[in-house]
């Protein structure tokens, strides 16, 4: 999937991945896509909730070797 920005939050715990994502999205244009990698198992549920609440779109989430990859589209 194409993306406009890549954010590595591996090794960071709650709530840092969400806070970093929010900051990155703020600097992006509407419709642009952020790719984010996290090792925080709680981030799966947290990003679903974050997108539900903020109106940004969670395009996909996948897991490989305990790394969680999210594609978020700025609203």
């Amino acid at each position: 999937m194409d993306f406009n920005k890549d954010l590595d939050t591996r090794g960071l715990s709650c709530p840092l991945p969400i806070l970093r994502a929010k900051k990155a999205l703020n600097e992006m244009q509407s419709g642009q896509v952020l790719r984010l990698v996290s090792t925080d198992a709680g981030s799966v549920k947290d990003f679903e909730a974050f997108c539900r609440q903020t109106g940004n779109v969670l395009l996909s989430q996948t897991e490989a070797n305990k790394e969680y990859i999210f594609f978020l589209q700025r609203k």
Partner: protein
Amino acid sequence: MGTTPDITLIEEIVRQRLDEILPKKLEETLAQMKANKTPSMTIIATKGTLDWAYPPFILSSTAAALGWNVSIFFTFYGLQLLKKDISDLKISPLGNPGMPMKMPFGPDWFKGINWNIPNLVQAGMPGFESFATTLMQRTIKNNGVAGIAELRSLCLEAGVNMIGCQMTVDLFGFTHEDFIPEVKEYCGAASFLPMAQEADVTLFI
């Protein structure tokens, strides 16, 4: 022709029609109001130790990231969290049986041991609290958990409103100069309660 319409019949028709329309209209209006309202949270932060510094700052920074309006009212020992330098916050395992006492270094089998140190020993050993705090800070770092100073500045950056309780500032002999300049307001219970009344979420920590 020429007959006056029965007023009670008209009233009955109007009433029936209103009964049909109003509930739907009301539901739409309420949903719209809910969608347009920015959620808000107020927190009363009353603890001044390293462990208890986390919940107010984690919840506030996250709420701000979700687009909420957040105010924290710092009172009693919570005022410690507003001090300019918060690198010296401490944790005490003494009388805290819920706190796991594990070492943040060494092989896994060693890190897995829960050191059951009697209160009497903890209380009698000089510097035990500082020792425990050092271990806790190391554990925090090892786990990629944010430092308290970092979380606090993330909160401030995101516009979290921090308020000091004037009564406890006086009680403990602090001055406003002891605290970060971002604290714009010092007030009391009468100012906090109306804020909490309007908020969707209010927490006492």
